[in-house]
């Protein structure tokens, strides 16, 4: 006979009350088979000496405990003992206690011929999962015995539910060529979708120009407020800071050549032609592009966009057009605010360096012209149109589920900023060729 092997588990010794015989008359034993008789075979209802512990834990009748609900996880610690061919469970085997004995029980189960549950005082479906896993580990000839009627009912119910994890199908081995091909097809599909959206939105804008009544003025005003008015504070702050930074940074090398007087020209041209529109675009992409994507993405996930289509209302007209118009109008204003704030910041630095206001103004007047400002504002309008379009497209092409909205917002910000820089490059080449 195999020597008795006791597996120490838990912090206590568990309930060793051998005299505890709840359900003793109703112990079931099925030697030779791991199967228990179905709970129904044991008769309807619950064992008279055991009240069902909610959630499947089976405990002695409430009267035995003074009517106090048994704690879900406390009390007797579970214990697993391998005694020769018998694997014996005792104590409370619940979701909160099974973790302590899970691995030792499975190790001890190997080669067992019988699993004895007669000392099990509490069993819930998590504990039943352990008993069933141990039975599987022991092999098909193992007999589960000694279960009281309520324990057997929980075990039977769980056994019907337990199925081995399905074997994962072998992962499809994608060769490098196939991976590249799949990536290329995905990109081409996305590009085609983008072109379709571009065409659809262009057609919507042209139709709106022909029939201005299609444009929902109230929506445009609402979006103008959101895109423009509410972004003023942030734009002012960034503008002043950029002006200060540019002036200070440029003063160091300029001083070496005694050319500090030209700082207003340098900062003025940088801001009006380049940095004003670019930074306003970054603000728009981060603040508004993501908001558009999240708002339209949520509507797409909630099938509101589908509902619009079914009602015969073009989402491009109702949802996209007002946003495009608002962003196209607001963006030059934001760029102008950024320009002016930057110049103010630069002026402050020049004053701190000892240059009088009139001198700074004269330098600005001499160094920058109206064309610099108009070129920058024109760029800004295009940036606004493109960033809003990218945000709307990201929202309308959102997938399903809660992640779709986050993905759409991310795509809007990343796409918006990349498009912004690329467009800026195109404008730089264009202005150079045109000699502006």
């Amino acid at each position, binding site marked *: 006979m195999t020597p008795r092997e006791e597996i120490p588990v838990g912090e206590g010794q568990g309930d060793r009350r051998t005299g505890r015989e709840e359900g003793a008359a109703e112990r079931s034993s099925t030697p030779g088979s791991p199967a228990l008789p179905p709970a129904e075979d044991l008769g309807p209802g619950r064992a008279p000496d055991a009240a069902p512990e909610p959630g499947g834990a089976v405990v002695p009748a409430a009267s035995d405990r003074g009517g106090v609900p048994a704690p*879900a996880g406390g009390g007797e610690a579970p214990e697993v003992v391998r005694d020769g061919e018998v694997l014996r469970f005792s104590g409370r085997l619940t979701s909160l206690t099974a*973790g302590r004995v899970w691995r030792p029980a499975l190790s001890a189960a190997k080669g067992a011929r019988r699993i004895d549950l007669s000392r099990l005082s509490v069993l819930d479906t998590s504990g039943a999962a352990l008993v069933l896993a141990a039975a599987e580990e022991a092999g098909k000839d193992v007999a589960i015995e000694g279960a009281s009627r309520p324990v057997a009912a929980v075990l039977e119910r769980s056994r019907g539910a337990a199925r081995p994890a399905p074997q994962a199908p072998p992962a499809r081995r994608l060769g490098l060529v196939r991976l590249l091909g799949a990536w290329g097809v995905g990109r081409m599909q996305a590009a085609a979708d983008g072109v379709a959206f571009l065409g659809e939105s262009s057609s919507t804008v042209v139709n709106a120009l022909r029939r201005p009544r299609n444009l929902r003025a109230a929506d445009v005003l609402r979006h103008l407020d959101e895109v423009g008015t509410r972004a003023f504070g942030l734009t002012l702050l960034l503008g002043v800071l950029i002006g200060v930074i540019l002036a200070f940074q440029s003063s160091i090398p300029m001083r070496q050549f005694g050319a500090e007087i030209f700082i207003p020209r340098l900062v003025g041209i940088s801001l009006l032609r380049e940095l004003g529109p670019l930074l306003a675009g970054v603000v728009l992409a981060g603040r508004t592009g993501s908001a558009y994507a999240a708002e339209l993405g949520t509507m797409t996930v909630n099938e509101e966009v589908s509902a619009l289509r079914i009602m015969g209302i073009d989402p491009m007209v109702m949802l996209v057009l007002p946003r495009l118009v608002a962003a196209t109008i607001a963006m030059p204003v934001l760029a102008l605010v950024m320009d002016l704030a930057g110049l103010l910041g630069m002026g402050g630095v020049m004053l701190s360096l000892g240059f009088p206001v009139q001198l700074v103004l004269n330098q600005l007047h001499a160094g920058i012209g109206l064309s610099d400002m108009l070129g920058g504002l024109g760029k800004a309008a295009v940036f606004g149109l493109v960033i809003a379009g990218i945000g709307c497209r990201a929202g309308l092409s959102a997938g399903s589920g809660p992640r779709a909205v986050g993905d759409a917002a991310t795509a809007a910000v990343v796409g918006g900023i990349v498009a912004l820089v690329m467009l800026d490059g195109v404008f730089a080449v264009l202005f150079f060729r045109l000699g502006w």
Partner: protein
Amino acid sequence: MGELVVVAPATSRQAVPGAVPGAVIEVRDVAMGFGSRVLFRHVTFQVARGEVFVILGGSGCGKSTLLKLMIGLYEPTAGHVTILGGELATASGDERRNLLRQLGVMWQSGALFGSMTLLENVMLPLEAHTDLPREAREAVARVKLGLVGLSDAAGRLPAEISGGMAKRAGIARAMALDPPILFLDEPSAGLDPVTSAGLDQLIKDLARDLGSTFVVVTHELQSILAIGDRCIMLDKEAQGMIAEGDPRRLRDDPPNDTVRRFFRREVA
């Protein structure tokens, strides 16, 4: 001159007349409202261990709000809700955590986490509250999914399953820790009759085999009659409870016109 009579305020621990033996939930003189709008008041009932208790009523009468009061998401404007001897509204720290561990909730929408598979959804409470090793959590979660008939869908994402499957997965997650009490919010809403009947059967089976106490919010007549051991009925007009008892008896012998109209689906 009349003399001043000092009346001791009611407390949650006072015995309720006609108390249900073995009550695991006690709702005592609870009132709830939002702003100046009173939803219900003087709501008092008890739920016994192991019964399927149904909260029913028409739309907007406060059924789901009462459920949220019971699970401690809302605090009542008056009265007490006691669950397994503790009061969630006032409990804090470990006491609150222990009480919450005794509850499982299936939300009306399922409220499954979209980025996780059904198996991972069910494993989540086990990870948070138990020391089960990963393979054990997975085995336990598979049993729970099997209990609700979703063994084959364990690896699917919530977006890939039907509404009925999402409800069943919600029940599986609610049962993850084998809580003594399960709250189900509109389990049959939006389901076809066959799926709905299957879900009703599942609730009855789980209550019978696992001894769980179920508190079910619904207004589906067939479900109420199929699963309910006892019920209360809330009414928007009356701003409170208008009936309590065995739903079949309420159907056969309605105590008032509102209950009669509800069970006979009559227009007011």
